[in-house]
Each structure stands twice: as C-alpha cells, then as structure tokens.
C-alpha cells in the first residue's frame, strides 16, 4: 500500500500509524489485516454497558450573567440588574448515547481495561447536539489516544488538531484542549477528546507521538493559550514572534486597538464598545 523506504526520518513516530483501506470508507467491507488487530479483535460490540460512577451529570457552570439584556457598561436602569443567570455547559450524558457513540464507548472501555481502566482515564462522556465529547484525565491522554488510533474497531487515525478554550470561571480547570478526531476507516466517524488543566499548572501530555500532524496545532495552542504540551519535540511559538509576552487568545489578554476618529465622532476600540453579550 505504501512505500516505507521513502518515509522521511522525522515521520518515524507516525510510521506505525494505521492507514485506511483504499478500497472503501465503510466499516462493512473493511479488512483487518493489521497484526495488531489479532489480540483485541474479539470485541463484539454492545452487550455490556459501561457507566462512569463518578461522572457528574450536573451541568458545569463556567460563569454567570447579570441583568437581562447583556449590557455591562453604564448604569442599568431596566430594573433587571439584580438578575443572575448561571452560564451552564452540558454535563455528563446518560446511556444510551445514540448512534455509533455507544459502540465507541464500549470498545474504548474494553480496550482500556488492560491499562488504566476506563473509569480512571475518562472523566465523563458528554453527548451534546449530536456530538460526543470524551473528557480524558490529562495523565491518561497518551494511552487513550494510542488506543483510539490503533484499536481496529476504533481507528481514529486522523486528529484534526487541537483547539484551546480558556474558561477563567472554572476553578482548577481553566484551560481546555479540544481534539477533534476523525476515523476514515469507519466512514468519517467523529469523536472529540477534551482535556483540562489548571491555569497554575498548564501541562498536558503531547499527542505528537501518536498523531505527528498535531505538531503545529500544539505549537499554536501553546502560543495562543500557554498550554505546555509535555513531550512535544519543539514547543515554540508559531504565529506570534518568539519574544512575544503573554498568550493572546486567553480571556484575560486584552484585544487592544485604538479609538478611531471619523467625521468628528470617536469610535472606541472593539473591546470597549457597548456590548450586549
């Protein structure tokens, strides 16, 4: 299928990466010729339901909104100023997740039994708006990632990068790294991994070993959010200059900008304009 001899040396870490079958995208006609599949292919899918004991199905509060209309500048004369609305992100989802998500969760649970165990590695599973997010504890990210990539019934051979999100209101889990995964072998199945780390200790293990294509994506997330990906071959800034202070995409980093004068009026910079969010 591929010529190993022409592989450049820096692709070494990805050499063992599974390669999707050229013939088809569907799982039905896929052939398991991979030697790795022999030991783990016994899983039949379904039948046993894994529940996470510690998973909290309560929504996660990341902040709160005051007042009725979202205005934060100036006096609120609406009478609704005392209204406090929590901002809630969806919590852990109960079974069944729907679609192929149950199968993915079952296979992952079985595959992880030999290692850390599903309950230890996975914090919670959130299915929201038809998308599945697996919250992985950061110390178990490399093993979970490798399992997701290599297990013949999972085969998430593509990781579409990593996107950071900064939630200053979520104490102890301020920084999130979000990994969208794609399985070409199983007909473009998608899955999302989410890993959190506290602002005070912004370390997450790198997945470049598993998905070499995440090299630049992790550098970007380090550049923009200050998440240090341990084990990355060269974690340097990529978009900002090397000596840039701060990490621009964090919420406590100002947008910057200057007021613009136009026809006698002054337009303030975007972050100082009236807002209703």
């Amino acid at each position, binding site marked *: 299928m591929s010529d190993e001899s022409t592989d450049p040396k820096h692709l070494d870490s990805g050499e063992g990466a599974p390669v999707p079958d050229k013939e088809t995208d569907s799982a039905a006609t896929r052939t398991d010729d991979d030697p790795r599949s022999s030991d783990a292919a016994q899983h039949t899918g379904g039948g046993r339901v894994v529940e996470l004991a510690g998973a909290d199905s309560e929504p996660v509060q990341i902040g709160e909104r005051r007042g009725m209309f979202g205005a934060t500048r100036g006096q609120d004369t609406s009478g609704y100023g005392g209204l406090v609305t929590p901002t809630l*992100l*969806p919590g852990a989802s109960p079974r069944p997740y729907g679609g192929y998500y149950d199968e993915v969760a079952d296979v992952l649970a079985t595959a992880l039994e030999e290692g850390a165990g599903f309950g230890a590695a996975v914090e919670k599973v959130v299915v929201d*708006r038809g998308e599945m997010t697996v919250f992985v504890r950061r110390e178990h990210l490399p093993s979970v990632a490798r399992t997701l990539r290599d297990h013949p019934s999972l085969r998430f051979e593509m990781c*579409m990068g990593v*996107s950071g999100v900064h939630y200053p209101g979520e104490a102890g889990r301020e920084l999130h790294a*979000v990994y*969208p995964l794609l399985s070409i072998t199983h007909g473009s199945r998608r899955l999302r991994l989410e890993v959190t780390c506290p602002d005070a200790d912004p370390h997450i293990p790198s997945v470049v070993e598993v998905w070499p294509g995440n090299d630049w994506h992790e550098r970007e997330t380090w550049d923009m959010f200050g998440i240090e990906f341990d084990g990355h071959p060269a974690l340097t800034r990529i978009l900002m200059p090397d000596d840039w202070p701060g990490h621009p*995409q964090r919420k406590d*980093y100002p947008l910057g900008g200057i007021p613009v004068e136009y026809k006698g009026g002054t337009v303030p910079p*975007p972050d100082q304009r009236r807002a209703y969010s």
Partner: protein
Amino acid sequence: MTTHDQDTVHDDPATSPGLDPSLPGNDPYGASVDDDTEGARVFTVSGGDWNDLVDEATALHEERIVVNMGPQHPSTHGVLRLILELDGETVTEARAGIGYLHTGIEKNMEFRTWTQGVTFCTRMDYLTPMFQETAYCLSIEKLLGITDRIPERASVIRVMMMELTRVNSHLVALGTGGMEMGATTVMTVGFRERERILRVFEAITGLRMNNAYVRPGGVAQDVPHGAVAMIRGVVGELRTGLGELEALLNENPLLKGRTVGVGYLDLTGCIALGVTGPVLRSTGLPHDLRKSAPYCGYETYDFEVVTRTGCDAYDRLRIRIDEMYESLKIVEQCLDRLQRTEGQPVMVEDKKIAWPAQLAIGGDGQGNSLDHIREIMGTSMEALIHHFKLVTEGFRVPPGQAYAAVESAKGELGCHTVSDGGTRPYRAHFRDPSFNNLQATAAMCEGSQVADVIVAVASIDPVMGGVDR
C-alpha cells in the same frame, strides 16, 4: 549589530492584564526589551570583502549552507518562509516558518456578534471565502439546533457558491503554480478564467472576494434576476477555458519533467501528518467529506471523487483539473434546482435569528430595498424592533460547543465554535487545511533539489491568509 536603542519612548506605562508583571520594559507588546543584551556579546557587523567570506567558507571545508527562502519571495506562495539547509543544490533539511500574516482573526471574532463573525472568517483563506463562511455557519447552526430547518434553496446556493469557489481556488493554484515554474501562459489563462467566477460572485454577493455572503440560518440574499442564465453561460466558458489549460498542461513534457515524482508523499505520510484534500487523494484514497460526511445536501448531487495514485505534484495538479470539471457538474445541478425553487426563502424562518434586511441596489450601489423599508417603517413595528435588536445586539446561542467540517478546495476545513450563551462567539477556532498540510513541506522536500521545493510547496497549495489567520 547592536540593538541598543536608548531613545525609545514608551508612552504607555499602564500594564495590561494577562501579562507577566515581572517582564521588564514599559511597553509589554513592544519588541524585546533592550536589557536582554546586558552582559551578552554584542556583534558589530560592518562592511566586509566578499572574498574574505568566501575564504572563510572554504576554510571550513563545508558545502552546507542554510538559506532563508522568503518570507518575501515571489515563488513561495505568499509570505511563507522556508528555511533550507543545502548541500550544493540538494536540500538536506527543510523547515517552514509561518506567522507573518497572523492578524488575530479568531480573537477579533470573540468581540463581534455571531453574524459579524462571517465578515472576519471570510478573510482567512482569501481564495476560499465561501468555505470558511459555510463551515462557521454550519457550526453555529449546530449550536442553535436549526440544521434541519435551513431552507433548501439556501443550501443549494451555498453548494453552488462553494463549488464555484473550489474552481476559483484550483485555478489560482494552477495559475500561480505554473507561474512559479515559469509557465506564464498558465497563469494568464488561469486568472482569466477565474475572473469569470469573480464576476459571478460580484453579481450575487456584491463583492469579488471576502464576500460575507453565507450567514447563520441561510444566505444574505437571494441570487439576483438573471443570475442563473449568467452562471450557465459562465460554466460553458469555464469548460472551454479548462480545456485550454488541459491542452497546455496535461501532456506537456516540460511540466511533466518538473512535476512527476516531485513532492512525493504517500498514504502513510499523509495520514500521519493529517493531510487532507487533493494531496491525500493523490495517494489513491477517495476521502472526500462531501461523500463520506455530507453536509448542505451533498448526498443528493451526482459527482465523482477524483483520485490518482502517483502521490506526486503532477497527480495533484491533474486531480485539481478533474475536480474542477466535477465542480462544474455540481454547479449545473444547482442551477436546475435554483430554477425549481424560484421564490422560496433563503433564510431560516425563525425571526429571532434571521436578519430581516432585504438588500437591494440603491443609489449608492447597495442598500435596503424600499419595500423592506416601507414595511418596517410603515406597517410592522415588530419587524423594526427585530431589525434593530438583531443588528445591534445579535442573537443568543445556547451554551455548548460544536465542530463542523467542510471539504474545502485544500482539504478538511473545520470550525470549532464555543458559546457561553451570549451574542458573541466565546471561541471560534478554524482548522485550516493549509495550516496542517504545510507541515508536509519537510517530508516532501528533503532530499530533492531547490527547484523542486517550489513545485512541492505549490502542489500543497497553501494560502498564508488561512495558515496564519
């Protein structure tokens, strides 16, 4: 080379949050502070004799030199900096340096409403504006839960615009790629044909590039009268022009000599590096999100996924040509559907999301239609209120996150959006295919000649606006 500049005036002593207060200097966003050189060796470069340098290099007995190609170089496809280690004419190591076009679009989007974000993301990869807009809007629609309620006509227009954009992008890829190899006629033909598409864009959206045409819930406005006939004519003209390009390129011995076997990256390499798009399809894998994970109703169109098996720059070029024909096939199907759905809405019914504005050409070239103004000023106060609220405040999106991916001309373009329930994106991240695919530069170029680097990079077709965002 001294960097001491004691006269620098720092007039903004205020420190900003989010920064390390221990950092020296008054201007935290300024360049590195002078104090860095304290105690360090200071080199002073003065004029020298070239012969001395040559003697020095000869004394080292090394042929190895490191060359910076770019960021201002006509053949590097924009402000891309290539750091090449050369042994004679052979590239022993290649690295790409990016970031020269970083404009902080993602950060800026967090300070505008969801709808205004379209205006920003359209400027990322400036050759594929419709793809960014659609990916962004699809992810917002997923967050809003209105994916199923997008009117058919809106999806048809989106598909048509995306496919025209794909042709547009591929034409530029071939044209600039050809120019970088010295084939100026390819460039002139490519840009001449692209001009036809830009004229279509101008007729429909009012702008040639950076259209901001696709909006959450649908598209900004319906296609104007006569557009269908115009596009039918353009499709025919494009077919002729593509034939001309094919005659110039396909069996051209010079082109084949430059591209066959150059920029080789096989399936293993592509999967390991997360490479998608024509580069992946040149390895024989028919991976196309339009087929494998359809969106906007792509499953109802008749087209083929083009693959070849050479894994090289030549096959990528041929794939791009064939893909343009497939895109034109889809555009023609869209035109039939546009005729069938004439008069149907192009925006979701929900009055809390859809911008009420109906644009029309006014005295100043653009503006609101008089009918619409008559309605909001004369007959419907609710419409006026909604118009005002939606334009100044925007609509709220329930908290959560979504990822939507489209098959852009360059590969998988993904958009990850997070909402905190406000009228603005809490976070919008774009997985630009050029950004990811550019990582393959080293794998494609190492061991080849310097001239092949140009061809290999051109076959990736990176657009730095999308890479750096």
